[in-house]
């Protein structure tokens, strides 16, 4: 084997990166260079401070040209970080990108070891192993495939709206799918937004209207993703559209149906603080601008039972349609943006805070509705138990956040929105006494610190540093057990109402959706970005992007910025004529395939089919994971540039046998 390779006269160059002290403190880069130069195929080796820098890449380019290198190994950080960088470098010097390999001597070596001698030995072996691999790598070209120049956006909150509008404005069709009857999301429920105190509706509803009228946007409300197949550029999506029972085109919003409907249930939009009918519109500015029937609450269509809303004298335009059916809609799209948003952490889980037992211990979103001029109390903050205006209220920060028993992370927005609540409340109830129990004030964002200062100065709010232990109601008062850790005293405070700044949690549907789309979720059930700095809006699946609070707790400003970033990345794909697919895919040795089907059942991408009793790999679907290779009992499948021969010789190099 060795002799046949020397005949090919592979000339390999090796570049060992110091990564500042990241690698050099634990690995003797000079020794790696010395040792690797002893390899018969290595004709050039050098070390450098930061090989990824411009001068570092220049070294590679120069060496390829001057020494006519046939392959390059960069011993540096993880390939997930800079493999693309260095492959682009060798490409500039007219070397095939698959003749560049990375030896990971940082994450897999210097960062996890302390003994410099042993770490250096390991670095030498890792580098040697990469040299053996690159010698045997084929020069490959990417597979080119066409794409659907259309985007799917999942979630119609501010993130999904912004992303959909950006893509639609750039001239590409967008399918916007929303589970609820209207778009607008959480932002539509808000009274005012920090730090500018813009009225949320005033800045959101024009965008909702723009979505409704945009010629490039197809809006599907009451709709859910059933399944997603395919790959970047060629996703096939099935969407289930639940019946609305009211035809939006005919409905003229006359309200007669609502007046006659005998059923009242708690309003989701008002967070249960008001009632709505079984036929309803979530809020007056909802898009689509139409009523719908909550069929679970509706008494029934039979005239014997009810059916009043459908009578011609009630619904003149005959918009009510009890025969409306569930629809399955199929779409082919090139890119997908996931913007499924957040919910508040269920306060029932916080038994000691009593929100599920006592009426005047409410959630921050409920308080937001109480402050909203379009809310259940028309913007006059009345407490739920007796509709009196509370004079003394307390805001409880970190209700479920930064708490190992609940959500360990900081929910990012609660400090600032609680301050906003205090400010709006003080304007409405000037003689109010306001307490705020916090652990740390984390007002991180442009102008937020100024905003907190303004609230402190204008409201005379009593900020008490210390987490609250218990809240309950007694004799019409809300009692709080707290502590002032700065004054070293325990506090028992009586207030008229308490507002819990509950943790933000991702929409529970995200788990199911993520598995359908083969994207990852993190330890806290938020969507996992590919890399926090290099690929902050990309999922691990090419062509699927993330935006908004589904990815991490964030405020509207960051959400909108991330949505536009996702749209921009999506447009980067939609504007291509062809997209490239990795050529390092599985190949079948047809002479050895027994047609046993095992590879088909193991392939997570559905990339293998049986053609004339022989396994056939659809290259554009194959992601090169190698599952089929290790499954095949006949050893008939190999992965390009990860062949059994290559893996074997790499292992030998790692074991010190070469």
């Amino acid at each position, binding site marked *: 084997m060795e002799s046949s390779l020397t005949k090919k006269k592979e000339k390999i160059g090796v570049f060992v990166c110091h990564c500042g002290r990241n690698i050099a403190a634990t690995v003797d880069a000079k020794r790696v260079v010395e040792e690797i130069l002893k390899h018969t195929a290595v004709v050039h080796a050098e070390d450098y401070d930061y090989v990824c820098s411009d001068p570092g890449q220049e070294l590679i380019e120069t060496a390829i040209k001057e020494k006519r290198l046939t392959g390059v190994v960069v011993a540096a950080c993880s390939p997930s970080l800079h493999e693309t960088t260095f492959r682009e470098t060798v490409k500039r010097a007219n070397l095939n990108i698959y003749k560049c390999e990375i030896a990971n001597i940082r994450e897999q070596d210097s960062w996890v070891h302390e003994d410099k001698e042993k770490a250096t030995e390991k670095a030498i072996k890792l580098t040697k192993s990469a040299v053996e691999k690159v010698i045997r790598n084929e020069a490959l070209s990417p597979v080119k495939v066409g794409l659907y120049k259309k985007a799917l956006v999942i979630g119609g909150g501010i993130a999904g709206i912004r992303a959909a509008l950006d893509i639609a404005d750039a001239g590409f069709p967008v399918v916007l799918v929303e589970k609820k009857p209207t778009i607008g999301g959480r932002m539509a429920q808000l009274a005012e937004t920090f730090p500018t105190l813009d009225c949320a509706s005033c800045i959101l509803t024009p965008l909702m209207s723009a979505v409704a009228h945009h010629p490039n946007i197809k809006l599907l409300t009451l709709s859910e993703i059933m399944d997603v197949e395919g790959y970047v550029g060629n996703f096939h999506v099935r969407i289930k559209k639940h019946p609305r029972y009211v035809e939006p085109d005919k409905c003229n919003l006359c309200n007669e149906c609502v007046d006659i409907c005998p059923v009242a249930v708690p309003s989701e939009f008002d967070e249960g603080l008001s009632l709505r009918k079984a036929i309803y519109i979530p809020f007056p500015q909802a898009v689509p601008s139409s009523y719908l029937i909550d069929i679970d609450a509706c008494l029934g269509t039979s005239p014997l039972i009810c059916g009043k809303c459908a009578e011609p004298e009630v619904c003149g335009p005959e918009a009510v349609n009890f025969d409306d059916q569930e629809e399955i809609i199929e779409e082919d799209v090139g890119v997908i943006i996931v913007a499924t948003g957040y919910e508040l952490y269920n306060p029932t889980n916080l038994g*000691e805070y009593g929100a599920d037992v006592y009426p005047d211990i409410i959630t921050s979103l409920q308080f937001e509705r109480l402050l909203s001029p379009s809310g259940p109390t028309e913007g006059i903050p009345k407490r739920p138990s007796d509709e009196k205006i509370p004079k003394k209220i307390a805001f409880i920060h*970190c209700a479920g956040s*930064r*708490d*190992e*028993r*609940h959500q360990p992370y900081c929910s990012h927005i609660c400090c600032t929105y609680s301050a906003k609540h205090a400010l709006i409340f003080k304007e409405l109830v000037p003689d109010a006494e306001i307490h705020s129990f916090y*652990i740390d004030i984390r007002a991180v964002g442009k102008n937020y610190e100024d905003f907190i200062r303004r609230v402190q100065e204008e409201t005379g709010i009593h900020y008490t*540093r*210390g*987490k*609250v*232990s*218990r809240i309950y109601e007694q004799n019409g008062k809300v009692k709080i*057990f*707290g*502590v*002032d*850790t700065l004054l*070293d*005293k*325990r*506090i028992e405070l009586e207030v008229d109402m308490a507002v819990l700044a509950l943790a933000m949690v991702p929409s529970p549907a995200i788990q199911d959706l993520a598995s359908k789309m083969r994207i990852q979720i993190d330890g806290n059930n938020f969507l996992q970005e590919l890399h926090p700095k290099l690929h902050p809006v990309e999922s691990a699946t090419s062509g699927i992007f993330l935006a908004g609070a589904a990815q991490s707790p964030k405020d509207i400003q960051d959400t909108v910025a991330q949505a536009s970033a996702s749209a921009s990345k999506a447009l980067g794909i939609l504007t291509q004529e062809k997209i490239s697919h990795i050529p390092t895919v599985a190949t079948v040795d047809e002479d050895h395939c027994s047609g046993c089907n095992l590879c088909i059942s193991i392939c997570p991408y559905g990339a293998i089919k049986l053609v004339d009793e022989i396994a056939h790999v659809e290259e554009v679907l194959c992601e090169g994971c190698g599952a089929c290779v290790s499954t095949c009992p006949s050893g008939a499948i190999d992965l390009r540039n990860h062949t059994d021969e290559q893996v074997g010789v790499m292992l030998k190099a790692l074991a010190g046998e070469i």
Partner: protein
Amino acid sequence: MNELVERVTEISGQNVYSCYQCGNCSAGCMFTDEMDILPHQAIALVQNEDESILEINTPWICASCFVCSVRCPRGLDVAAIMEALREIKIRERGFIKVDLRKVDIEKLPQIAITAAAQKFTW
């Protein structure tokens, strides 16, 4: 690691450095009126390797009701830390009013030694 912190960690199984001084233990504690310092301050003294904690009555007032442990957002068993402080005081500083010379202190179960101490010393 400092000796005090090491002993507390060994006895209680808790990492005192995970406390972020939110004060929840103090907020829920029913006996703070009788304490020299609040429970979260006691933890801060341990974090700061301050042996004056062993001269303070807070661990002794603690009734082991476990409200602090149940509600600690960092999942610390605060009551176990209080117990550790009591045990350190008894075993290593000889502070005790019960005559335990007749028994082998090293072999006496933790719960017995502290229960006896609590009963007879305060």
